C-alpha cells in the first residue's frame, strides 16, 4: 500500500492516522506506553498526500513525530501499537518505541529521535538507487524546526551537487517544539532551500489533493533523472509537542491559532467534498470510520496480547557479527 489516486482511500488513510493517534493518546493516559508520544493529529494530509504519490519500493525517512508517515507508507497498525507497548511482536521487537518505528520491506527507513538526521540517510538511499540504475526515489520528512539543523542544510547541498532523486518534504507546522518559527528562523524558509539551488514549492498542507499533486510532480521529475525538489507543506499540529504518562507539557500556543487550524481540518475538507459530489460509495463515510475503528481495536488487542521481550534478549541486535564475550554484559554472568 502506498500509491493511490482514490480520494476515499485518502480519507480512509487520514482517518486511520488520526484515530491511531487518538487511541495512542488514550493508551498513554492508561499508562500502557513507556515513553513519550508525539501526535501527528492535524498534519494527516501531508503524510497521506505524499505517500500516495510514492511507489511501494520508494523510500521515506521519518521524524520523532513519525506514526503518520509510517501508516501512510503502509505500516501495519498492529505491529506499530505492539512497538509502542514494547512488545516483541512490534516492528522493532520492542527495541525502538514510538520515535523509531521502521519497516524496511515497505521502504520505511525509520523514524528518528534526532531532528534532521533522516535527511542525509535518504540522500544515501537515493544515491544507491542512482548507482544501480533504478528509478526509485527517496523522501525525507522533516519539520520547520529541522530547517535550523546544519546536517539538513548540508543535505540540501549534497542532493543538488550529486543530483539525487530526492523530494524534501518539509512539514511546516509553525512551531519548533513550542517556539514560533518566526522567532527561530532567519530569512524565509522556502527561500533558504532555494538558495541551495533546489526547485521549491509551497503547498497548502491541509489539502490532501494539493499535497498529492505537488508531490507527484516532484517525484515524476526525480524518477526521470531531473534531480531533487524541496516542498514546503504549510500545516498545523493540533496537540502539544508530546505526551507521556504522568507528564503534562504546557501548550503556549494561542487558542485562536488552534481554532483557526481546526477550521482548515484536512479530514473534514475532503469529507465535505466527497459528500458534496456523492463520492463516498456504499455505506458512506460512516462505513469507512467504522472499518477504521474495528481495525484499530483489533490492532490494540494484538499488541496487548503479545508477549514482551524476554530479559535475556536485552543484548540482542546490537551487532550483526558477534564474538565470544561480545557485546560485553555489565557484570559477570
Amino acid at each position, binding site marked *: 500500500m502506498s500509491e493511490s489516486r482514490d480520494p476515499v482511500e485518502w480519507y480512509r488513510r487520514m482517518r486511520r492516522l488520526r484515530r491511531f493517534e487518538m487511541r495512542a493518546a488514550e493508551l498513554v493516559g492508561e499508562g500502557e506506553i513507556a515513553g513519550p508520544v508525539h501526535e501527528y493529529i492535524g498534519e494527516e494530509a501531508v503524510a497521506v498526500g505524499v505517500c500516495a504519490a510514492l511507489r511501494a519500493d520508494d523510500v521515506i525517512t521519518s521524524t520523532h513525530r513519525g506514526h503518520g508517515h509510517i501508516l501512510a507508507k503502509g505500516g501495519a497498525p498492529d505491529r506499530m501499537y505492539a512497538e509502542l507497548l514494547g512488545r516483541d511482536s512490534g516492528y522493532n521487537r520492542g527495541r*525502538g518505541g514510538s520515535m523509531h518505528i521502521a519497516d524496511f520491506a515497505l521502504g520505511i527507513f525509520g523514524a528518528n529521535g534526532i531532528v534532521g538526521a533522516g535527511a542525509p540517510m535518504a540522500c544515501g538511499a537515493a544515491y544507491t538507487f542512482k548507482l544501480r540504475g533504478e528509478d526509485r526515489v527517496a523522501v525525507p520528512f522533516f519539520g520547520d524546526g529541522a530547517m535550523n539543523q546544519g546536517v539538513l542544510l548540508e543535505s540540501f547541498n549534497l542532493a543538488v551537487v550529486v543530483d539525487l532523486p530526492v523530494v524534501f518534504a518539509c512539514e511546516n507546522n509553525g512551531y519548533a517544539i513550542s517556539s514560533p518559527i518566526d522567532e527561530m528562523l532567519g530569512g524565509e524558509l522556502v527561500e533558504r532551500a532555494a538558495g541551495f539551488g533546489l526547485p521549491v514549492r509551497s503547498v497548502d498542507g491541509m489539502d490532501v489533493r494539493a499535497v498529492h499533486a505537488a508531490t507527484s510532480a516532484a517525484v515524476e521529475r526525480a524518477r526521470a533523472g531531473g534531480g531533487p525538489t524541496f516542498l514546503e507543506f504549510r500545516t498545523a499540529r493540533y496537540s502539544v509537542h508530546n505526551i507521556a504518562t504522568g507528564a503534562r507539557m504546557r501548550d503556549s500556543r494561542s487558542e485562536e491559532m488552534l481554532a483557526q487550524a481546526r477550521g482548515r481540518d484536512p479530514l473534514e475538507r475532503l469529507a465535505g467534498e466527497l459528500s458534496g459530489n456523492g463520492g463516498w460509495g456504499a455505506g458512506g463515510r460512516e462505513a469507512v470510520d467504522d472499518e477504521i475503528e474495528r481495525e484499530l481495536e483489533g490492532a490494540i488487542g494484538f499488541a496487548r496480547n503479545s508477549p514482551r521481550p524476554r530479559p535475556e534478549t536485552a543484548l540482542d541486535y546490537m551487532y550483526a557479527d558477534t564474538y565470544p564475550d561480545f557485546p560485553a554484559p555489565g557484570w559477570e554472568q
Partner: protein
Amino acid sequence: MREMTYIQALNEALHQAMSEDSAVFVLGENIRGGMRPETAGLDDAFAPGRVLDMPISEAAFTGFANGAALAGMRPVVEFQVASLMFPAFDQIVNQAAKLPLMLGGQAHIPITFFLMGAGAGGGRAGQHSDNPYTFLIHAGIKTVCPATPADAKGLMLAAIFENDPVAVVVNANLLRTTGEVPAGSERTPLANGKVRRAGRDATVCAIGSLVPAALEAAERLTADGIEVEVWDPRSLLPFDKEGLAASVAKTGRLVVADDSARTCGFAAEVAGLAAERCFDSLRAPIKRVTRADVTVPYSTPIEHAMLPAAGEVEAAVRAIAA
C-alpha cells in the same frame, strides 16, 4: 612475500574490496583524481560513481553513507584527519552505532569509517592530533588500529566486509613504514591479538603506533636481561581478552601503551580486564603509559613532552620488572 608501505597496503585493500563486491564504494573529501595515495587509481579502475568526492560536510556525507548502507551498500567513508569525525558525531554515534539494535535486527549498517591522519607528533596541534578510538569504542563502534602494513590491508578488508560499522584508525606516523604484505585478499579477523615479540618477564600491550615503540623498548631492555612480550590487540572492540590473559599469565606483569587520554582511556579498560581476569598471575602492579590529560600542544618540545614513546614504555617496564 612483497614489501610495501602501509599506505600502499591500504590502497591495495580498497582495490581488492571494490573488485570483490560491487556494493563497496568510497566517499570522502578530495579523494578522486589521484589526490591522495590511499585512494589513488580507484576512480580509473572502477565504474563511475564508486569513488565519490563529497562537499566539506562531514555530518551529511556520513549520514549519506549510513543511508546507503541501510539500502544495501558497503560504503567506506574517509575522513582525511581522524578528528574530522567530530562534526559527524551524531551520524556515527546516534545513528550508525545505535540503529541496528533500535531497529530490532531489521537492517544492518555495514559501513567503514576510514580515519586517516590519527595520532600526534607532527606539529598538527590539538584539532588534528587525536587518536579518537575511545570515543568510538564507548559508543559501541567496532574499532581496529592496524600497526603494520599487513594488518592495514587485512583489517581494512575485514572492516569493509563486517556487517556492522567498523572504524579503521590509521596513525599518520605509520603511513610510510614498510613490511611484507600478502598479495591475496585475506582478512585479518577481529578480536584476534598478535604476539609481536615473545618474552617471559613482562607483557606490553601496545596499540597502533606504539607497537614499534614497544618493540624498540624491548630491544633496549633485552640488553639488561629483561625479556618483554609485545602483544598487539589489533582490534580494540571487539577485544581479544583471551589473548591478553594468556600473555599476562605467562609473564605476570603488564604495561599498557595507549596513545590516547589517560582518564577513561583504553589503557584503563585493558588494566581493568587484567585486574579482573589475571589477578592471580600478576606479580606487580599494572602500569599505564598514555597521553597526559591535556589537548596536544603545538610546539615540538611540549608536544613530545605529553606523548608516550619508547622511553616511557621502557621506564614503565623497568619499574615493575626489577
